[in-house]
């Protein structure tokens, strides 16, 4: 620690702190334009000049100067104020004073500092820049005339996003922030650059001219797309969510968001939202009152209850709050006497609810997000972890680039993570993850690299026996990797002092289920890499509350029907009533034909949703539900963070929250009084779900809480499924596109601008062999059907493997994929 004096205040800070950090610790504000706490110090803008007595009163930048013992710093003297005024005058020489029409006004660092330093006159005169404004993309408007060359956009895109869209180009007075070949911006559109731009040079187009910054009501919430659990601030005016507002003090991610989080909010106020309940009359869905709809639903459910509860089932999305999921479970368990409930098609949560449950004795990941940057080696299963959870991808980027964490990837395709420095990617044949992970474990045993604790864990001998079949030499050919490569990877993992495994889950990843979760668990247990900082496994639940749905037991726990059995039950008539809350099985569950037939067959289908989805269109009663912005509650994200969402706007139309709908149904079916509010349900969760013990909604505050996890380890041998290979065909693997999450992002304008429709991605060799070019429409044919999709050609896919994202309703990939890890297809023009 170093002691120094800043403006007569004594402060003690770590020795790697800068003067700026030290001043901040002492509560002294130093003005900045180019500095950002997330980025490496830059020292470009010269606003943070301070005087240091030991340097003979010279003015030096606070943001780049490290502290030294006994340093005496002055942050505000007449000379410093004069210097800062000069900096502002020089910036305003080129910066246009178009504040009345600039969206950044009110949230503009330059404007605020100009005001603070009272720069009302300029001693200099010059012409303004005449750069062309980039209107080419629908999300980010680039007006380089307003740019003050702080470089934050280029730095964040490089250091954190690792996309590198921007650079300083040209020299001297002609220098400006540009893109490759000074063309239009064409990137991931995460909007990180917009969030850090200190002026209005980069602005969000969907928000342009929507509201003045100071007129917005700012409501803290949590993103409702993927499982990362990014905190965000909604900008609200006149009962509408108009934008997301960057707050660098929110969450582990310091306010960073991805495309969906930043630009995908429009689904909240979409004009496609359902306004009233609908009831099917004479075969057509017609508007109805809530009373009529709820009376009908309650009567049908009462009937189902009286029939014993076996013939009623529920599918619920892991996007609902914990409190809503709790009520959903209660409705079935206590209200209807049924255990036929499930979510995420059953398989997308199996890694947690079956895999982790058996191996670790808990349904949660035995690691937290903070372990990513605390590790020495990250083993990522599929580069898709970046696509499914982009902000966790930023954490990986930061860890690898800034902390020099080793990165090993086993994947059926290449991807953005594979481009990180020192990343070693093992591209294996699709569907072979379990065999490969087992082979790693076998090497660890064969080379005696296991931890001393391993032999004491239940099931060790059985595992040892089972792994004997998985010697690298045995699996190398089926995995498509060298035996030596497998051995090297196993050694790297075993020898790293701290290592963390990351496994994305989701409806697009049917292979990432129980067996893979357990094979991975075995690997961590063998090497003693669990239960310590920087170690363990992060099972990345797909949806914002996937972890909560697992915690609350929203799946059959007493022998009831799972998602697949529910579909079978609907088809064979054993399930007569089905409630679907927020799920869209027609698009996202495997084998669309079968799902559609099941939903057509079921006698009474109730759908609660925001939109008239493909599933809702088949319902007998549709109940309009609320989005995350219209309700309060909690979500539990990856790494077990329980966080609050707050109501930002009144319900759209006549919509009611799933909480209100379910609360009423539970009361009417159990005959008990409804819960008073969300807090009452949360209190009951805290009282009945052990992991949530002791929590209260009020105490969660803005930051939330990390749930404790205790593990009871056990080795459970995980058998690798045999993937039948069909020669002459291509292996289709499904998954997530970077811009989408589930099927809800289709109603956000932002994601749809960037990625409006499904596609099939091919490697260059396959594309050449089929004479398919980027943008061609191709026919993809599997055993269960055929689809027309646009082709995308790139370097990601290895020969013989093609990829298609699953989010889209039209030409949905589940029309040709029936839930196998690999679907064999042929492609023709």
């Amino acid at each position, binding site marked *: 620690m170093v002691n120094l004096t800043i403006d007569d205040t004594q402060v003690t800070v770590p020795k790697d702190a800068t003067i700026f950090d030290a001043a901040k610790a002492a509560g002294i504000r130093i003005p900045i334009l180019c500095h950002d706490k997330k980025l490496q110090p830059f020292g470009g803008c010269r606003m943070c000049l301070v005087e240091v007595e030991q340097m003979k009163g010279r003015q030096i930048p606070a943001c780049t100067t490290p502290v030294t013992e006994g340093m005496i710093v002055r942050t505000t003297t007449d000379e410093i104020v004069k210097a800062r005024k000069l900096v502002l005058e020089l910036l305003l020489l080129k910066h246009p004073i178009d504040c009345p029409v600039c969206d950044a006004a009110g949230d503009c660092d330059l404007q605020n500092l100009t005001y603070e330093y009272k720069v009302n006159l300029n001693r200099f005169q010059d012409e303004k820049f005449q750069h062309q404004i980039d209107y080419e993309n629908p999300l980010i408007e680039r007006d380089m005339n307003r740019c003050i060359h702080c470089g934050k956009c*280029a730095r964040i895109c*490089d250091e954190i996003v690792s*996309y*590198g*869209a*921007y*650079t*300083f*180009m*040209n*020299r001297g007075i002609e220098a400006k922030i*540009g*893109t*490759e*070949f*000074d063309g239009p911006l064409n990137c991931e559109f995460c909007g990180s650059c917009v969030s850090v731009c200190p002026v209005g040079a980069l602005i969000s187009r969907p928000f342009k001219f929507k509201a003045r910054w100071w007129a917005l009501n700012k409501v803290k919430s949590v993103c409702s797309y993927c499982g990362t659990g990014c905190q965000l601030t909604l900008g609200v005016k006149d009962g509408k969510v108009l934008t997301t507002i960057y707050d660098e003090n929110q969450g582990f991610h310091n306010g960073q968001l991805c495309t969906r989080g930043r630009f995908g909010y429009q689904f909240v106020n979409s004009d496609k939202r359902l306004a009233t309940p609908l009831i099917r009359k004479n075969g057509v869905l017609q508007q109805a009152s809530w009373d009529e709809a709820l009376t009908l639903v309650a009567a049908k459910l009462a009937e189902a209850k009286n029939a014993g509860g076996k013939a009623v089932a529920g599918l619920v999305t892991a996007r609902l709050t914990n409190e809503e999921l709790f009520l959903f479970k209660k409705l079935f368990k206590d209200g209807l006497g049924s255990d036929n409930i499930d979510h995420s098609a059953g398989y997308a949560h199996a890694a947690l609810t079956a895999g982790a449950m058996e191996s670790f004795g808990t349904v949660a990941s035995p690691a937290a997000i903070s372990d990513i940057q605390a590790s020495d080696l990250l083993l990522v299963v599929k580069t898709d972890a970046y696509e499914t959870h982009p902000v966790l991808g930023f954490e990986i980027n930061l860890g690898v680039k800034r902390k020099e964490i080793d990165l090993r990837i086993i994947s059926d395709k*290449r991807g953005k993570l*594979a*481009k990180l*420095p*020192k*990343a*070693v*990617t093992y591209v294996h044949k699709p569907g072979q993850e379990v065999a490969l992970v087992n082979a790693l474990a076998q090497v660890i045993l064969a080379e005696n690299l296991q931890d001393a604790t391993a032999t004491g864990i239940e099931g060790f001998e059985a595992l040892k026996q089972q792994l004997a079949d998985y010697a690298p030499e045995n699996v190398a050919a089926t995995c498509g990797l060298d035996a030596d490569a497998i051995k090297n990877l196993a050694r790297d993992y075993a020898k790293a002092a701290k290592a963390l495994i990351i496994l994305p889950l989701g409806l697009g990843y049917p292979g990432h289920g129980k067996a893979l979760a357990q094979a991975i668990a075995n690997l961590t247990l063998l090497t003693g890499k669990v239960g310590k900082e920087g170690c363990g496994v992060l099972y990345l639940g797909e949806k914002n509350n996937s972890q909560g749905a697992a915690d609350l037991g929203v799946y059959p726990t007493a022998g009831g029907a799972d998602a697949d059995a529910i579909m079978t039950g609907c088809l064979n008539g054993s399930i007569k009533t089905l409630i679907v809350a927020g799920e869209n099985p027609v698009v996202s569950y495997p084998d669309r034909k079968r799902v559609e037939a099941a939903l057509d067959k079921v006698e009474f289908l109730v759908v609660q949703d925001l939109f008239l989805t493909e599933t809702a269109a088949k319902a007998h009663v549709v109940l309009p539900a609320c989005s995350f912005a219209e309700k309060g509650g909690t979500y539990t994200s990856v790494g077990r963070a329980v966080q609050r969402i707050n109501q930002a706007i009144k319900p759209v139309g006549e919509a009611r929250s799933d909480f209100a709908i379910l609360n009423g149904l539970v009361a009417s079916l159990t005959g008990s009084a409804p819960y008073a509010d969300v807090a009452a349900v949360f209190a009951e969760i805290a009282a009945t779900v052990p992991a949530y013990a002791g929590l209260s909604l009020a105490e969660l505050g803005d930051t939330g809480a990390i749930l404790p996890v205790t593990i009871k380890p056990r080795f459970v041998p995980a058998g690798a499924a045999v993937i039948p290979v069909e020669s002459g065909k291509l292996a289709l693997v499904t998954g997530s596109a970077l811009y989408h999450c589930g099927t809800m992002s289709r109603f956000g304008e932002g994601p749809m601008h960037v990625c409006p429709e499904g596609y099939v991605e091919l490697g*260059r060799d396959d594309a050449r062999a089929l004479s398919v070019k980027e943008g061609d429409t191709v026919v993809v044919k599997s055993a269960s059907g055929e689809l027309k999709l646009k082709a995308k050609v790139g*370097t990601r896919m290895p020969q013989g493997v093609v990829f298609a994202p699953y989010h889209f309703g039209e030409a949905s990939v589940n029309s040709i994929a029936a839930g196998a890890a690999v679907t064999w297809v042929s492609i023709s023009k």
Partner: protein
Amino acid sequence: MSNAPAEEIPTADIDLALANHVIDKYLTLPGNLMPVLQGIQEEYGYVPKPTIDLVAERLNIYPSQIYGVLTFYAQFHLKPRGKFIIRVCVGTACHVQGAPRIVETFFDKLGIGHAETTPDLRFTFEKVACLGACGMAPLAMVNDSTYGSMTVQKVGEIIADYSQRPMKK
């Protein structure tokens, strides 16, 4: 993975074999971007766009950053250059000896301005600050040949001379 092997890179209209050869040469050298770009310019006469994408992919550097480097240094050219590079000194000594008229005459006769190339890719014209031979002012150079004590008349002769020369190497 950080350095992609050559065969994964697409080939467009431009023959990338030369660029691949240059990259192979410097692949393991730390800080290899500058020599690679210089080598590519040596081979093609300028830095064609497909080679930038190639360098980006093989050296794992963002294309935008490569573009930043290329536009920072005056030595790099992003457009094809003429077979014959005419450089006229406009330094102090040459300026006093009438370099501005020499420059104007070249502009008139070639129909191009500073740092521009004729459509037939025969001539590129550049004003330069000093060629280091002030005793011969006003001075012009065409590729490696020097022309001292330039006059307006000599401008015409030089253009006529180089217009006759073959375009092939």
